[in-house]
């Protein structure tokens, strides 16, 4: 709708609604009081930030297999080394490393892989409460066969609400994860999904 097509009466309503609203002086003070009693926000430090920030970890199926195989190999080698040094088998089997290879690599963060079938998309991003719904923070990677988009992120334990933002020929569209639980409808027409990250990570 161009400016010239705007209805004068609707424009009058808009003009009135653009006037500043009276705001109680106390509210800003309360905001700052709450801020002062909140710990200082910290930007993730370089070097350490990569350990904690959700970020793409593109792993092809072949790459995942090789990584798992590598971890199994490391576990076996560690086992052999311990056996050789002590001359007996260790109490805890080192192959447990392989069993936990897909589980957390950090005390409080767990690796979770998101995937969406979107063969016609030109770009897909993961947005959620864990990245402040940023369209730029967590881009997804197209799979080798071009049909799916994936990203692997580390998330703290708990419930996370998220969605995919799919760029296609008709523009940008938010879509829920068809493979996940649906977040309660907020009544505003954008469906979100829920992932539950906990002990043993479950969707």
């Amino acid at each position: 709708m161009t400016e010239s097509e705007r209805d004068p009466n609707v424009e009058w309503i808009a003009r009135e609604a653009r006037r500043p609203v009276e705001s109680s002086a106390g509210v800003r003070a309360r905001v700052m009081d709450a801020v002062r009693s909140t710990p200082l926000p910290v930007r993730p430090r370089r070097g350490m930030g990569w350990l904690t920030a959700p970020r793409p970890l593109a792993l092809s199926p072949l790459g995942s297999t090789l990584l798992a195989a590598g971890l199994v190999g490391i576990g076996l080698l560690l086992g052999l080394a311990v056996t050789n040094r002590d001359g007996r088998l260790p109490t805890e089997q080192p192959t447990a490393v392989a069993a936990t290879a897909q589980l957390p690599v950090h005390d409080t963060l767990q690796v979770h892989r998101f995937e969406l079938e979107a063969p016609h998309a030109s770009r897909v991003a993961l947005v959620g409460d864990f990245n402040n719904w940023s369209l730029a923070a967590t881009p997804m990677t197209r799979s080798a066969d071009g049909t799916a988009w994936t990203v692997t992120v580390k998330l703290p334990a708990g419930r996370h609400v998220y969605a995919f933002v799919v760029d296609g020929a008709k523009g940008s569209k938010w879509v829920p994860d068809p493979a996940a639980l649906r977040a309660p409808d907020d009544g505003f027409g954008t469906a979100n999904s829920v992932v539950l990250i906990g002990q043993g990570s479950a969707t």
Partner: protein
Amino acid sequence: MTDDAADVRRVLSGDVEAYAALVDRYYDQCARYAVRMLGNRDDAEDALQATFLRAYRALGRYQERDKFSAWLYRILVNQCRSLAARRSQHERVFVREEAALLNAADEREAGWTGEDEEFVQRVLSELDPLLREAFLLKYIEELSYEEMAALTGVGVSALKMRVKRACDRLRERWELIKHD
């Protein structure tokens, strides 16, 4: 470096009071949106407090390649949505369109005597929340459809339709009252 980026860096380097500059810079604009969207000042204040506090806590993850105002607005829009969604249906200030038509009969009898401010708030509150949100972002905050799409996650064509429907509803409402 913009004022916003400089203030964000000051906060992150330990100067909490620098956040007051950000609050002052955006408070009025955010307050206007929250009041117009939620229809009453108590809810708007809750949304504003939650928005500024949430933004503060997340400031470490704010990335300067995003515009601070757009980032803050995205949090505000989501807070207003959450607040509205948490209300049970009977507590909503938003009047459903059917109810609006019933109320309109009373107003015809009594004649409209309200102030402009009350009138504007009333007709906005009568809009469906989806339409009201789109109308406010387009006509009051004067965002482009692309900015609105990035903010709301709704496609441009759907947003255009919502704005048009909102304008149609407002025009109908205006006509109804004007002809009393």
